[in-house]
């Protein structure tokens, strides 16, 4: 089956991100296709490139990156939700006159139209909410 994940919970604050990542790994282990993870609401913080969690805790951002590298899972971040929370890629940082950027590939800033398309092209869209 083709799956999509909609993640709304902030990393380390809520269980949502941990559960979503475990679910994502279980999907690919079972031979399903995980098309994309769409980060929305506080879920956008999962894409923060500067996150530095303690070494004895799961590194959620690296976990998402590994899914992308090993299984081609797309990592889409809602641009409107990200910008108002201080998460910008290089292009947006430059457009808004900010000194640094906080999102980089393989996380991609995109619009909500991608979320709608993802939901409609997958057999299942699973939401992980705070």
């Amino acid at each position, binding site marked *: 089956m083709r799956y999509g994940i*909609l993640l*709304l919970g902030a990393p380390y604050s809520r269980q949502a991100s941990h559960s979503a990542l475990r679910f994502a790994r279980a999907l690919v282990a079972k031979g399903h296709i995980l098309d994309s993870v769409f980060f*929305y*609401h506080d879920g956008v913080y999962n894409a923060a490139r500067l996150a530095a969690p303690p070494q004895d805790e799961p590194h959620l951002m690296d976990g998402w990156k590994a899914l992308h590298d090993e299984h081609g899972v797309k990592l889409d971040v809602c641009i*409107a*939700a990200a910008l108002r929370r201080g998460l910008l890629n290089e292009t947006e940082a430059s457009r808004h006159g900010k000194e640094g950027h906080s999102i980089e590939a393989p996380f991609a800033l995109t*619009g*909500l*139209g991608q*979320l*709608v398309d993802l*939901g*409609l092209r997958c057999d299942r*869209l699973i*939401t992980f*909410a705070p």
Partner: protein
Amino acid sequence: MNDTQTDLQGDLLVILRHGPHGSSLLREGLDMALVAAAFGRRVSLLFMGTGCTALVSGQGQGPLGQKGTQATLNMLEMYDIETLLVESEAMHALGLEACDLSLPVIEVSPAQIQAAMTTHRLVATF
């Protein structure tokens, strides 16, 4: 109920379970509905639990400077989002009547909610 079920067909059902203040989930859920409608998808909204309070008249900007969701709700018709369902049980629990709400709604039972979830290709819950 049969008439209601006919109305309930669509591409996307957005379920809104949070009120207009305290979190941005209502606004971000409505944003998804508007974007889907702008791309030509048939969208229905289902207000459940405290989400029903979103429809109470006069939800303007609060003292915290949030935008308020009344303006967005007023735009729904322009986006052809006309199927607004509200959870009947929540309306009773909150002491609300349809006449307290700013837009025309259809009150739905648990069975009708179940039906709505099966007659839409995609369900997103906020």
